[in-house]
């Protein structure tokens, strides 16, 4: 047993990334869905940075993550650390360790919370030490703290043009993703939606790469709030989607995806490719928008200050200011979704989510998605937004286990709420998917039954509805907006839509 004294342990503190390095150093990032990542890259390029998206995390990354950091990590931490390390290693083989350290920096979101999200640095740090790359520079940006210049250096300027560009990139790709998921399950020519989405993302990259810069402060803010630049671009995307022919008379269950932020957002091995898998099993996905998360962060900030109303004189004013900001944000989201024909739905009202969750989960309990998991499941149920909710819960996630536990009370009260909490370990795929399959089977039955009931109620037959659609080809376009009215499924809503138009009489 060694009892020698050594140099004291010190936390990793990377050398700052400076302005003069911008031309030679590439910013690495990742962890979102590919559409958002690609457009964020364009935002960075627009601001004069070199940027690169890390490849989607794979099972090999998971294994590497487990190998290089302390045991017992939640699986998103393993995936993301392994992903970074594997990328750096392969680059080191190609160009050498020193060059990798010189050429790349990594930026990722940190958190102000107490779960591991707020402690990611430790996993990355250990992984870098264990792979002999302590000199590699990695920076965590706290989500609630935009001015972190001193620690990070002036290489990446986190100013308004950057923040607004990133926010608009997220909003635009969110609405695009939502439309895509509404269309693909019904496309007549397989692969056509993917093709259009690919073209649209490339097009949006171009749009963001050429975004006009209107100063670093108010000018930039004012321009983003009032410009027609992005809505025009999305109208162009909408036009591209119009080329896709759909057959919406396929009765499919709608599955709302919720869960831990990383797992619900990425599309790939980390969540067993659940989006694609559900589609291949005959579901329509209601994806989890990143925009909802940003809206939630605003609510969290408001809630913190609300506690001080009646105690701190400025609290009321601050709450009012933040609520105005939140309204402006939602208005911008609405502008963008309307540019896509209003097909992507509005963001759920954060205060309704809070109210719905209240009997089961306190709104101030933070970490992960907090009360939103309970709130979203109830919201989808009460508002007939989905036949079932699939919650992606990372193995050993602290906050998620808590909301899943609280969901026991919800399911007790609403036994017909179809809820599939899937524990995602990264490698126990068959187990997770078969669990989902069981509930999906029930959801499919419900979608079919609902469709048949609507046909019966309207006195229509599938053939007559089809005939009507043939006579009205605009309704067979991906861009036709089916009115949603009291039933969940797209096919059932379409039948009601046709009936309302007097079709089949």
């Amino acid at each position, binding site marked *: 047993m060694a009892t020698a004294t050594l140099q004291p342990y010190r936390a990793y503190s990377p050398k700052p990334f400076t302005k003069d390095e911008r031309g030679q150093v590439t910013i690495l990032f990742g962890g979102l869905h590919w559409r958002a990542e690609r457009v964020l890259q364009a935002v960075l390029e627009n601001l004069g940075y070199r940027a690169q998206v890390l490849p989607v995390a794979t099972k090999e990354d998971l294994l590497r993550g487990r190998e290089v950091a302390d045991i017992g990590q939640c699986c998103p931490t393993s995936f993301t650390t392994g992903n970074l390390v594997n990328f750096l290693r392969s680059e080191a083989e190609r160009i050498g360790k020193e060059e990798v350290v010189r050429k790349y920096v990594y930026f990722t979101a940190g958190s102000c919370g*107490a779960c*591991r999200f707020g*402690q990611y640095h430790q996993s990355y740090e250990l992984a870098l030490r264990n792979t002999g790359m302590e000199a590699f520079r990695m920076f965590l940006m706290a989500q609630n703290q935009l001015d972190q210049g001193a620690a990070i250096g002036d290489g990446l300027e986190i100013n308004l043009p950057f923040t607004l560009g990133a926010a608009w990139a997220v909003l635009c790709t969110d609405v695009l993703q939502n439309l895509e998921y509404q269309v693909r399950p019904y496309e007549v020519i397989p692969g056509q939606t993917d093709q259009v989405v690919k073209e649209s993302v490339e097009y949006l990259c171009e749009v963001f790469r050429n975004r006009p810069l209107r100063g670093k402060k108010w000018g930039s803010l004012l321009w983003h709030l009032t410009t027609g630049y992005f809505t025009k671009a999305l109208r162009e995307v909408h036009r591209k989607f119009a080329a896709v022919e759909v057959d919406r008379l396929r009765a499919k269950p709608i599955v709302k995806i919720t869960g831990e932020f990383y797992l619900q957002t990425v599309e790939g091995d980390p969540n067993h490719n659940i989006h694609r898998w559900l589609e291949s099993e005959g579901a329509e996905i209601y994806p989890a928008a990143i925009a909802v998360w940003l809206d939630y962060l605003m609510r969290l900030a408001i809630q913190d200050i609300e*506690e001080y109303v009646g105690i701190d004189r400025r609290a009321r004013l601050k709450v009012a200011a933040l609520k105005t900001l939140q309204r402006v944000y939602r208005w911008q989201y609405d502008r963008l979704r309307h540019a896509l024909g209003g097909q992507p739905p509005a963001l759920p009202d954060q205060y309704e989510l809070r109210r719905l969750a209240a009997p089961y989960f306190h709104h101030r*309990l933070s970490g992960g998605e907090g009360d939103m998991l309970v709130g979203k499941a109830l919201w989808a149920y009460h508002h007939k937004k989905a036949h079932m909710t699939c919650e992606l819960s990372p193995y050993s996630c602290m906050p998620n286990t808590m909301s899943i536990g609280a969901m026991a009370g919800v399911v007790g009260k609403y036994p017909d709420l179809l809820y599939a909490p899937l524990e995602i370990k990264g490698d126990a795929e068959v187990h997770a998917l078969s669990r989902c399959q069981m509930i999906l089977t029930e959801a499919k039955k419900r979608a079919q039954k609902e469709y048949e009931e609507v046909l019966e109620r309207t006195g229509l037959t599938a053939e007559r509805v089809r005939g009507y659609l043939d006579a009205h080809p605009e309704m067979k376009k991906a861009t036709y907006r089916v009115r949603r009215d009291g039933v969940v499924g797209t096919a059932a809503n379409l039948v009601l839509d046709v009936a309302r138009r007097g079709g089949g009489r």
Partner: protein
Amino acid sequence: MPRWFARTPSGDPKSRSHLRVGIPRLLNVWSTHQFWWGFLTALGIEGEAIVFSSDTSEDQNRQFGKGRGTVDCCYPVKCGAGHYGELVFGQKRKIDIFFSPMIYTLPSFLRGHVAETLSCPRVMAGPENIKAGFIKEKDVFAENGIRYVSPLVSLGEPLIVPKQLYETLKDVLPGLTLEETRRAVHEGYQTLQDFNERLRAKGREVLEACAREDKPCLLVLARPYHMDPGIGHEIEVDLQVYGYPILWVQYFPVDPDLLGWMFGEDIRAGIVKSPFDISDVWPSSYSSNTNEILWGAKVAARVPWIACVIRLSSYECGMDQPTYTPIQQIVERSGTLFFSFQDLDSTKPAGSVKIRVETIAHYLEKYSTEIIEKKKASMPPGCPLLRDP
């Protein structure tokens, strides 16, 4: 407001004196029970009518918690079903109020020097999770005529605590006013502080005795609820049998002279800003219990007579996981012995604990003198523990 008016309770506290309040002895209630005691008694609840559930045991869980678990997670939360059940079903005299606070932030001695003093997400949300097992089929509390009260309370932010507690208690305690709640909260903090100071003073006495006699002691780095014999499995007690005094980080003395001696050089060198600053080893200092454990590791590295650190950690603890390496490194680089008992669960792994305790005792016997000498040599002179009382 005139003093006499402010002091007049608007309700009759006597009407509360018949109320029995049950509190599950869970999670961070372990470090804040004195606050709750002071608070509730100040509101007119009789001391004998405040019932804490027993220490965690497998028996408790079998008898009262079976079938009420809602999710698989770390044992400190999972055992909650047994505590809840015991308070509802296992009381000779029924309780009227089931009081299970959701502690959001903690009144840590590190507050102000760290980024935050939040509870673990499972600690704060534990009550919601455990409650679900008691309402999923029918509302067990209502059925037993018990009011379930679970305020979210930011004990790290004293200014907002009265409001938070008043909002949840006003319909439960007859005649309660905000002003009265404020006074009771003040009383709660005072009781907690007095208790902590008493224990810290004891800790100092132990350290001084060790310093005087050049004898080793052990520091336990764990979460407060590892003091629960059913959670921490009394591993430190097994070591105490060998005659080694045990200190817990939560009650380590924080007297300025001692802190100045331990951290003065680091402060002067600009490595840290204060004796409670842990940014040199742990920049994401959000979690209160984690922060205290990290600080404890730094202390252990500096105090010569702490010859050994015992780290306790529960199975599936997500908060401890990222800290394994830093804590071990901080401690071991100072030459201090480090032993970690990870993955503690419901059952005490008696066999392996016995072997490890024997090993620790052996190492202490063999190396503690050398460790103490080396650590003494690396620290500045003038240790206040050696001064005459």
